């Protein structure tokens, strides 16, 4: 009985709206029965969209790399060590999520103009770190907590270097945390409109920058296709990242 309630809620509030988008993207504007692929054709026929997709992927890539580096090391410190001031540090890492992103961006914009980071992709990467890093630290912290200290100690006892321990023990065992961080970070980076607009100043054109002006368009098929593109891109990025993760040697050696 319960399971039907669960899936009915899902069908009504998640599946129905999304399938409506899918349906509209394959039909002509305003009609849901007149099949046409013009929405998608028009979408991919625009050079601006393809360029913006590229820009978004490159920015997302750097944001993800920074998140992995900062999140892994901070998460490990918070999970496995006790030190003076830990609760303060803990609270500080939630703080960026509680402050209005616009307040931070307004303030940083001035600084970025001064040091030449305004209107650059690097500046946009920096501002995208603010809404993503706190989540990554939390995810890796939980990952390291369930991993525990024992495994690393074993590596150490057997004479492995810190780097070796990281590559052979932590990385494979933290795989699901890494996957979550890659996915979540990329989605959040892709979703930032206003902070990208302010810091990028119109010269860094990400997908969100192209999408917003589109929304008033009467061509609902095109907007529907564009909307779905936002969900497809993280999936493609995720598959790509997964492919890269598989390049690590230990992933191939496992044979049973």
């Amino acid at each position: 009985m319960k399971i039907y309630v669960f899936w009915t809620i899902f069908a009504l509030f998640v599946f129905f709206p999304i399938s409506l988008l899918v349906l509209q993207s394959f039909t002509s504007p305003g009609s849901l029965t007149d099949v046409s692929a013009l929405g998608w054709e028009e979408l991919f026929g625009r050079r601006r969209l393809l360029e913006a997709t590229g820009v978004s992927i490159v920015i997302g890539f750097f944001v993800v790399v920074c998140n992995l580096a900062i999140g892994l090391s901070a998460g490990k410190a918070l999970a496995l060590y006790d030190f003076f001031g830990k609760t303060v540090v803990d609270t500080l890492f939630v703080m960026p999520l509680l402050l209005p992103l616009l307040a931070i961006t307004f303030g940083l914009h001035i600084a970025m103009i001064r040091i030449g980071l305004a209107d650059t992709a690097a500046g946009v990467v920096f501002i995208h770190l603010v809404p993503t890093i706190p989540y990554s630290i939390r995810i890796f912290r939980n990952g390291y907590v369930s991993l525990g200290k024992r495994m690393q100690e074993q590596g150490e006892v057997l004479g492995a270097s810190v780097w070796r321990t990281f590559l052979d023990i932590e990385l494979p065992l933290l795989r699901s945390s890494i996957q979550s961080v890659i996915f979540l970070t990329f989605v959040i980076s892709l979703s930032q409109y206003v902070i990208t607009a302010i810091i990028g100043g119109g010269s860094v054109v990400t997908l969100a920058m192209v999408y917003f002006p589109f929304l008033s368009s009467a061509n609902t098929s095109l907007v529907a296709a564009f909307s779905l593109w936002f969900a497809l891109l993280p999936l493609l990025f995720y598959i790509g990242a997964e492919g890269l993760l598989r390049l690590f040697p230990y992933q191939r050696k496992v044979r049973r």
Partner: protein
Amino acid sequence: MFVRRKPWLMLTPALLFLLLPLYGLWSALWNSLTPDGEVTLRVYSALFSNTEFLFSFFYSMWIALISTILSLMIGWLMTRFFLFYLENTGGKLAVWLPMIFPHFVWAYLILLLFREGGVISGFLPGDPAFANDPQGIGIILTYLGKEIPFVILMLLPVYLERNRAYDDLVETLGGSFLSRIKDAEWPFIAPVLIETGLIIFAFTFSAYEVPALVGATFPEMISVFTYDWFYSGDWSERPLAFAAMVSSSAFIGIVAWILLFFMNKKRRNITEGL
């Protein structure tokens, strides 16, 4: 000594990252206090005598409060009652699905469904528009769609890792269903619930994208209102934009401080057995 220093070394990149939000906030504060190079509270007195701003501030507070409370309640009920299905891959995917759409895409969906003549509102008697409405129903609906899955994902690990022996304990002692929730579940979920609620409140209070798309032209959420100040023709209104955002930060900071204070007090009570 080396062992002691190590965690701080590992925290250094993250602490350096914290300079971004801290400096941003400081710079916003400084610029709101020195509109013509000298420290003055002129901007703030202008801000708080601006009735449009005050109205927008309270409107944002109201919308954020409703969105937060509804998200927490529905998210918590769903986690609690559907825990069994949420553990499975299918259930997890169902929760993750709305997470992969940006907020503004979800806002567009609400627009498509609920605007005048929309897919749903068009069928309702009288064609009521729930998007771009002054009551902010469109904004709230958008946030519910995005934040309920977020609440579920935050609560799920707590419910999965919670010591379920407490449930049996309450049952053995003859406790009711309500006392089971109060004594065996609430102490575990309260900290996460409060933290999640704070994150959602701060976000819905000050985010720009959703109200810019499904909000009404009047009243405006604080973010949309402030953004217009920031980008008004000349830069004369920029100090006002800074001051508005600093005030919002201060407001959220006070709310967070009060809630965290009570949470810590409660936590102490639990650990010290009071």
